[in-house]
């Protein structure tokens, strides 16, 4: 029994070795390939992604309204006090000056209080609205099963959104590309790298591939400048578009 063990181990050892060598060769070849040869540009449109959907959660009490909305309100209120005071004045009859001053103060006080009251009402209305909004958001976001989670890759509806946005960009830029005929017949090609902020404004543009014709390159850069602001990117993509940007290739097809 003991004698058979060494015989069994030896051939097994050989197979491991040859397997390892084979794997090294294959993996090494692929590593070399990816290091030496540039990878092709991924055409997002042809990618298919699958997301795993979970069962929905139960909706609990809504979240408190966001404070940012309250901060916005005082700015809007400023023009209104002027209005209210003016409206009040014609109603008063002719009164002695001292009394008039007192009356004015009272009037102003009343007006301010009214405003405060109005504010409160508006606030409660807004609170209710924001609560309803929150519920809606919860329904959309946390009620899993209705929507596909964003994940870290383009999936489902996000892919459609992405494709739609790219199409929007394309038709938007097209509208601004005025090319003189003398530059349009030579099949010239210029590629411009563009970065846009979350509002679509161009924050960076640079020629990454020149056509060899300065005037043609200049027209491409001017087109990008004229096209700013670009369509507002969906919030999911705005980070990428601002940090990494995107390339626009200008080449007229016959």
């Amino acid at each position, binding site marked *: 029994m003991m004698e058979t063990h060494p015989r069994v181990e030896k051939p097994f050892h050989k197979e491991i070795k040859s397997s390892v060598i084979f794997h090294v060769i294959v993996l090494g070849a692929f*590593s070399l390939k990816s290091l030496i040869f540039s990878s092709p540009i991924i055409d997002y449109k042809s990618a298919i992604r699958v997301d795993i959907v979970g069962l929905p959660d139960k909706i609990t009490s809504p979240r408190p309204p966001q404070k940012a909305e309250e901060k916005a309100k005082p700015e809007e209120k400023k023009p209104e006090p002027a209005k209210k005071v003016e409206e009040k004045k014609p109603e008063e009859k002719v009164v002695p000056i001292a009394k008039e001053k007192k009356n004015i103060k009272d009037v102003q006080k009343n007006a301010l209080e009214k405003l405060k009251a109005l504010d409160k009402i508006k606030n409660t209305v807004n609170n209710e609205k924001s609560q309803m909004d929150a519920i809606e958001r919860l329904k959309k976001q946390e009620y899993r099963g209705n929507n596909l989670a964003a994940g870290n890759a383009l999936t489902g509806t996000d892919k459609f959104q992405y494709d739609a946005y*790219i199409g929007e960009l394309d038709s938007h830029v097209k509208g601004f590309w005025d090319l003189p005929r003398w530059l349009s017949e030579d099949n010239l090609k210029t590629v411009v790298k563009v970065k846009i902020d979350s509002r679509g404004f161009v924050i960076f543009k640079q020629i990454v591939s020149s056509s060899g014709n300065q005037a043609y390159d200049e027209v491409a850069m001017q087109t990008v400048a004229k096209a700013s602001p670009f369509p507002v990117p969906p919030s999911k993509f705005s980070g990428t578009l601002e940090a990494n940007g995107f390339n626009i290739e200008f080449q007229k097809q016959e």
Partner: protein
Amino acid sequence: MRKLFIFLCLFVSLGAHSQSDGIYIKVTDANVKKSLLALTPLQYTGSASLVSQYQKIGADLYSVLRNDLDVSSYFEFINPKAYLEDTAKVGLRPAPQYANGFKFDNWKKIGSEFLIRAGYQVVAGKIELESYLYYVPTATLVVAKKYTGSIDEARTIAHTFANDIILNLTKKPGMFTSQLVVTSDRAGNKWKEIYTMDWDGYNAKKITNHKSIAVSPNWSYDGKSITYTAFAYNSKTKSRNADLFLFELDTQKRFALSTKAGINSGSSFTPDDKNIYLTISQGGNPDIYRMDTNGRNQVRLTNGPAGAMNVEPEVNKDGDLVVFSSDRSGNAMIYTMNTSGSNVKRLTFAGKYNASPVWSPDGKKIAFAGFDKTHFDIFVMNADGTNMIRLTSAKKKNGKMANNENPSFSPDGRLVMYVSDRTGKKQIYIANADGTNERRITFDNYNYDQPKWSKK
């Protein structure tokens, strides 16, 4: 083993870097527009006392240049009323480098993309044209040239400047010094003689005097020879026959190349000018032959079939395909074949009579005249018969459709020339190869036919 394993992991992880990619948008559709050009009036740069004497020369130079640039379809002219500076008072070169120079700002403000400043003078019977083309957005000089020539070469000088502008901008030569050859009844007496002209209809020269019918002329590629067919009187046979002639423009010598009984017609040169394709009937049905430019070594390329006629051959720029018209299918249609006569391909299937096919200079398109129910029109299609477009459509004064026939491409392939009887007489017209921008070239009451644009 362990070391090998670690090395393996490291090596593999190197290849696992994230692939460099980018969001990539391809914009392929542009709003193609003409460039705004300020073609400022020419200045007389010689002695002030001679300005009025040579005014006509200046006017000719200007009108030729303007017409050429207009026909090119690249430019739109700014109305001189919009100019912000008096071009007669400022120099041809820009300020501040040059004293009393024009200011680029004045041209940028009115939106001009290009500016032409030119001056001429006549000294000892010779014209000197000093011309500058500026690209206004970058305030750069694009073309700066001086031309000289005799007074009667004024039009050629302006044509040459126009050519240089087109060459500089598009890297392809312009066609403005090209010519046409045509048969016409201008000489009267119901004769038809052969004429050459500038492409714009000027400087007509009669090159035959057979006092008979001379038709279907064509150019050699070097522009030095013209072939044509004339019903000339043959002193040997003491009769008239449709013989093929070759005329040398430099030496003014004339040679009878093919005198077979019947028709010797519809000739075209090979791009090396060593051979000629033509139609010979030899008393039977017209077929296509090839021969050298001495009229020797005739090779027959078609034979019917069944008594069909094969006419109007033209070889392409590569010298490997011949396009021709044949009625072997019943109606005259357009065909191609190899230069050996094999591999005959039918290209057109519509219409009742498709004739006079010609290649575009790059060999990618074929234009022909097609009879469509009531009249002929010019059509352009790809060399394989696809993507056919109708180039012409015109009405006569009586409301009937006019005939547009005998197309010929310009040397740069941008334009097509043809004849049209819309005015009652056959006159020469040109249009862009897409049918736009049609212009009349001859403006008289003569008849012109079978025009052929020179090859350069």
